[in-house]
């Protein structure tokens, strides 16, 4: 183990200034209210996830739970520059993007509880939140499996002559999957308006960059092999995330060209709760040092306080309200019903759900002891 060489450690060591990009046009026009709202959105993600962790420990949530805590500024900053025709798709660490896209805590918490009131009626779980009405296309469980889907969203936008971009998020662990490279080649070859956002939190599950990639200087630089523009972004800085993601979105809108952004960030918890033993690949001191120096919420809140946009007391009051919201979401989820048994075969086929609108015939489900035709 070479903890001293980890990307996580590098993320801590890099000197950064939270006021970088403050005067970028996309940031200069921000109102105080908008700035406060970014803090609120980041806090909502954090408190929501902390509450979901408690629910997991209480046995209310099963399966995997991949927490985004530490990375909130990436989702909030990048989604805040999206317009009505920009679309978003991500991997399994998807709670932050879902909330930042406008999904509410109740539907997300209930989904994790496996309840009928969940965003996918209890059929998807933690890794599979969806809200296509908010241009949010999931929530995908297989590492890099969403990368060609994001490409397809961009293809669809271009095909329909819509001036929009598809933001496709992924972790650093996804960069060595073949389908990601196929997607990059196609994105550039077909001139598609897709932005690949690599959220590099330093560890692909428990394997550091050094142990997973032959080329370690930069993940974004792989773009050059495909003639794609790329950049590196300090993920804990809201201004910088907004400025650089906005630049990529403009490139997509104006030139229909793809971009890769490697966003340096850090996750405080394990890859998932089921394997939360972070000690195996990093030290507690490393996590603590990052939190002290670069916690995205603290950095942004301090900036707002420094600029007298917000007082300490107001920030505390906001936090208190958000904790209440998260608590209420857990309560809502707890009290919600499980999906009725018969719904297990709904939402599989459009034709089964819309029996009067097609001429399909024959049997579509095949249990002899249960269900239709049993």
């Amino acid at each position, binding site marked *: 183990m070479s903890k001293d060489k980890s990307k996580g450690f590098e993320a801590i060591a890099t000197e950064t200034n939270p006021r970088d990009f403050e005067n970028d046009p996309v940031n200069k026009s921000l109102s105080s209210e908008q700035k406060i709202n970014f803090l609120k959105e980041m806090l909502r993600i954090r408190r929501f996830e902390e509450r979901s962790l408690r629910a997991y420990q209480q046995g209310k949530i099963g399966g995997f739970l991949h927490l985004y805590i530490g990375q909130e500024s990436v989702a909030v900053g990048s989604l805040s520059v999206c317009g009505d025709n920009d679309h978003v798709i991500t991997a399994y660490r998807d709670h932050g993007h879902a909330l930042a896209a406008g999904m509410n805590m109740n539907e997300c918490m209930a989904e994790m509880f496996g309840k009928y009131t969940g965003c*996918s009626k209890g059929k998807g779980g933690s890794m599979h939140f*969806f*809200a296509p009405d908010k241009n949010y296309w999931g929530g995908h469980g297989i590492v890099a499996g969403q*990368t060609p889907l994001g*490409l397809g969203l961009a293809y669809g936008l271009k095909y329909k002559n819509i001036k929009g971009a598809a933001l496709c998020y992924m972790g650093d662990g996804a960069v060595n999957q073949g389908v990601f490279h196929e997607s990059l080649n196609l994105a550039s070859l077909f001139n598609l308006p897709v932005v690949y956002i690599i959220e590099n939190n330093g560890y692909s599950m428990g394997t550091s960059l050094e142990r997973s990639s032959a080329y370690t200087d930069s993940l974004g630089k792989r773009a050059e092999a495909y003639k794609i523009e790329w950049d590196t972004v300090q993920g804990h800085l809201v201004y910088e995330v907004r400025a650089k993601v906005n630049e990529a979105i403009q490139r997509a809108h104006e030139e229909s060209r793809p971009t890769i952004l490697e966003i340096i960030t850090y996750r405080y918890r394990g890859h998932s709760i089921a394997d939360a033993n972070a000690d195996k690949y990093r030290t507690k001191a490393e996590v603590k040092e990052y939190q002290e120096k670069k916690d995205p919420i603290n950095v942004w809140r301090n900036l707002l306080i420094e600029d007298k946009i917000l007082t300490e007391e107001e920030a505390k009051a906001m936090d208190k309200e958000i904790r209440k919201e998260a608590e209420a979401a857990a309560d809502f989820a707890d009290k919600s019903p499980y999906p009725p048994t018969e719904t297990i075969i709904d939402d599989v086929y459009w034709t089964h759900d*819309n029996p009067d609108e097609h001429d399909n015939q024959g049997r579509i489900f095949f249990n002899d002891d249960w269900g239709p035709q049993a």
Partner: protein
Amino acid sequence: MREITYREALREALSEEIERDKNVVLIGEEVAQYNGAYKVTQGLWEKYGDKRVVDTPISEAGFIGMGIGASMLGVRPVMELMFWSFAYVAWDQILNNAAMVRYMSGGQINCPIVIRGPANGGTNVGATHSHTPENFIANTAGLKVVCPATPYDAKGLMKAAIRDNDPVYVMENTLLYGMKGDVPEEEYTIPIGKADVKREGTDLSIIAHGRATLTAVKTAEILQQEYDISAEVVDLRSIRPLNEKTIIESVKKTNRALLVEENKPFVGVGAQIAHLIQWNCFDYLDAPIARVSAIDAPAIYSKPLEDFQLPTPDRVLKAALKLCE
């Protein structure tokens, strides 16, 4: 009625659907400028241009996934796989993404994609290019799979597949592309999930799909002429959804069932058909249900053995005669 080839029937279906719906786009390797590896899409790029007929690099996982993503936004991509054997490098997209996204989103997202191409052995190209994955596809709730055996069925099922709001995977056959058959001039579609009785009979039901249907019909003719046995041939056409009713009615009439397929026997389509026949027709059976499948080994290259490996009329005949003893 006019006669056209299976290949031309498919091409007509694609062409008509491109003209009918502006969201239909053909995407795949060599489909445009090269006119299709098997010439199914011949002339379509010239006629409809770059937007509607799109060449891709050899990159199945990438472009199939791209098609799935585009279909989520309401595009209706018809993706060509040069061989269904190449699907295996795109399996995560084909089985995981296309099939699961509707369910995991609680019905919020549809995936109206068609993936088509040949899925057959018997062409002297060895094991890696001879796969018949209809059973894997049919095993996955969320997917539909059809296997047309004639030009008429190929056209009608392809048009229905393109109009369907679920993923429909069409298994064609390179050995059938040049085969001619009756196809009406006027527009038609064939409902997905509707079997077709290709030959009526009273003594035995031969149930098949894809090219095995034609082998079954040939065998039925020999049975009639040389043994005075009247065999009914049921062509499934669609594997999932499955026209159970037609199978059951046929077996209840003939009291004997022979299942023929060019897929492998273990967990093949026939295994499911055998189950549903015993479940529904137990008291009607005068003999055990018999199966003739591809010989259970990887597809062999050597031609004489390859010819033997797929169900031949001779093998089907022997099995039928044994059933009727």
